[in-house]
């Protein structure tokens, strides 16, 4: 009998391991992602910047512009495929009291401009961050990244990677609504 029990040991140990992995997957699915370090800037004031315009008919971007409006700040690049995927969604984020601002990240200005010419320019303001100083201040490590900044200039949300319709519906829209109050 004890001999039989010995042969059960592997499956018992394995079941414990599977149970643990399942627990971990559930945690990840609920947004508790241990490998993602949350941005330390969330709930802190946005870093100061003053960026010249990229296009003739779209203004540049300064910290002072953030005051009084909810700002969605999107770091993008013409060379990045996920940016193209989220591009059509951006226009839908604009609205009453919401500014959509863009900063090309490590992207030649001519490339960024000609891409926006082709794909459409949804931004209310675009700042050229020539030396990537502002991106460094924001802690950007890849494109696309999107920040939601409240009326007092405090960062309230950060998305690393492309925006998706689900994310906009579940996280961004409720947050923007709340911030506009």
């Amino acid at each position, binding site marked *: 009998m004890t001999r039989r029990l010995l*042969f059960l040991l592997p499956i018992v140990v394995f079941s414990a391991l599977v149970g*643990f992995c399942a627990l*971990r*997957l559930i945690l*990840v699915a609920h947004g508790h992602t241990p490998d993602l370090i949350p941005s330390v800037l969330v709930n802190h004031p946005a870093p100061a910047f003053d960026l010249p315009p990229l296009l003739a008919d779209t203004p540049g971007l300064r910290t002072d512009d953030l005051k009084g409006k909810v700002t969605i700040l999107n770091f993008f690049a013409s060379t990045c*495929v996920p940016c193209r995927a989220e591009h059509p969604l951006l226009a839908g984020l604009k609205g009453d009291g919401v500014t959509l601002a863009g900063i090309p990240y490590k992207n030649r200005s001519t490339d960024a401009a000609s891409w926006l010419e082709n794909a459409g320019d949804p931004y209310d303001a675009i700042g050229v961050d020539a030396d990537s100083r502002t991106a460094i201040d924001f802690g950007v490590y890849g494109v696309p990244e999107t920040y939601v900044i409240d009326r007092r200039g405090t960062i309230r949300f950060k998305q690393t990677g492309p925006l998706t319709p689900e994310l906009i519906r579940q996280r961004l829209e409720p947050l923007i609504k709340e911030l506009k109050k």
Partner: protein
Amino acid sequence: MIAEMGHFALILALFVSLIQASLPMVGAARRHAGLMNVAKPAALLQFVLVGLAFSALIAAYVTSDFSVLNVAQNSHTDKPFLYKITGVWGNHEGSMLLWVFILSVYGVTAAVFGENLPPVLRARALAVQGMIGCGFIAFILFTSNPFLRLDPAPANGEGLNPILQDPGLAFHPPFLYLGYVGFSMAFSFAIAALIEGKVDAAFARQVRPWTLAASSFLTLGIAMGSWWAYYTLGWGGWWYWDPVENASFMPWLAGTALLHSSIVAEKRGALKAWTILLAIITFSLSLLGTFLVRSGALTSVHSFASDPQRGVFILLLLTLATGGSLVLYAVRAPALKNENLFAPISREGALLINNLLLATAAGSILLGTLYPLFIDALDLGKISVGPPFFNIVFLPLMVPLTAIMAVGPMLEWKRGDLPGALARLKFAFIAAVIVTAATWLIAGGAAGPLWACGALGLAAWLGAGTLSELADRLQLFRTDFSESWRRAHSLPRGAYAMTIAHLGIAVLIVGITGSTAWKTEKIQIMQPGDTVDVAGYVLTLTSVEEHVKGPNYTARRAHFIARRRGHFVAALAPERRYYAVPPIPTTFAAIHTNFLGDLYAVIGDADDEGGYLTRLYYNPLVPWIFIGAGMMAAGGVLALAGRRS
């Protein structure tokens, strides 16, 4: 169009694998020859279909078809031709397709070479292969399809991660997968034997060649990864106990245990249930190795695909494969009777100790790799288990393993003569004492750590002991030379294989010891013209070139001249490469080797005053690590060749 063809071929392959998984299994249960015979053409057809799908993806990469999302995300027109091809498996989706392709290669090989097998065993084993194929193809089609289109197609791709654009890493995944997937054959035969309820010598003879092949490939795969880390990460190290490295090392340890326990099962009809369990564990660890890297359950420097959605599917696959087989094991294995009793002092006794030590080592590494995840999931904080843990646990297991490795082959089966074996090892003992003492006198004492003397002594013990065993078999120096020559010809290749593989381990130990104990490291800012002394070599930075054009990068290239006692030794030209897409800088170390040690130079960032950060190393005996690994793999190949002739 080609991408759709590949996609379609893969869908067909899924159906074929379903047939391969079911009909032969039913046929084997009913002893229906017609149904069992479906296995062979099904394996062949699966190979053709998966091969088509894989070729289609390669074609999309070679022609830079950026309307395929996977190509757009991982390739670029400026990429050298070689890396367009290897870029196919430089990403999650493509590497899974490579995995399935290799599985189909093994399947077709087993079907073709399995003619002389008992038909029931063969049908069941191929059916289990079909099940594995079915699970993986479904995983690719439903969660990781590499044939998805992108509309509109971008003008160019995002490029392959530059650190993957390297010959060492380009061929590392195929060899790793040839190893991982090779263990699926041992697994399939184990499951087939469990269903049959019979583990006999025929089964053990089937398990061994596949395990040999898989172990040899895995050894090469791990060595390539380690070699790559050595010359591109720029720290002069070759092993970091990184979770991804551990993920490939665990199946290696379990597979090595399986390799040895299957000898006992074949020759002595013992350790049957244990061999079956090892076959299941080894393949499960291979699956874990494939998945841990890619599921988001584990993160490390070189995991390049993380997606929790896939995690669910992966967990399901693991549960079915490992859980299912362990349940079968719990039901069937208790009935397996060993034919012979075990004497503690015997060849099989030594192999049992080998198995216990290797299994404990694999278990400890699994614990160390998963422990931080446990702690994190239970919200007890974030910890990381690093090299100190692994060294403390691993080394005490490897010392007795190495000591016994010299003795085991000297012992007879059934009842060994330990005093006799030790007496025949007297030369090995003398060699160990001499090497330990010589190390102590030359490099020990003040100049290096004490343990290194013992470690080199141990390597001498193993090396000399292994050679003594061969000399014994050849009756070298005991009879006249022509008799030894005759014996050398008639000795089975397996004997030479073991000698070479075990010598490889001795060489590996020398390499590990040397590089750990006597490494010299100099980090400084240098201006052109400056000179640094590294372990008796005088290195002069003569010049630094900026904007050197490579195929798809620009580089800063430094020129060093190395001299020893005033004589020119080598010119070294390390580079720091800046890739345009994606914009990631990489290190390209310059290495001058004389097989006793490597002179290793790295160029870093510039400061404002015309100086450059340079890291200069002398890494003694590092080449021995890779030579040793190569010898182990060569031993495996030789043993494999010996079995067929």
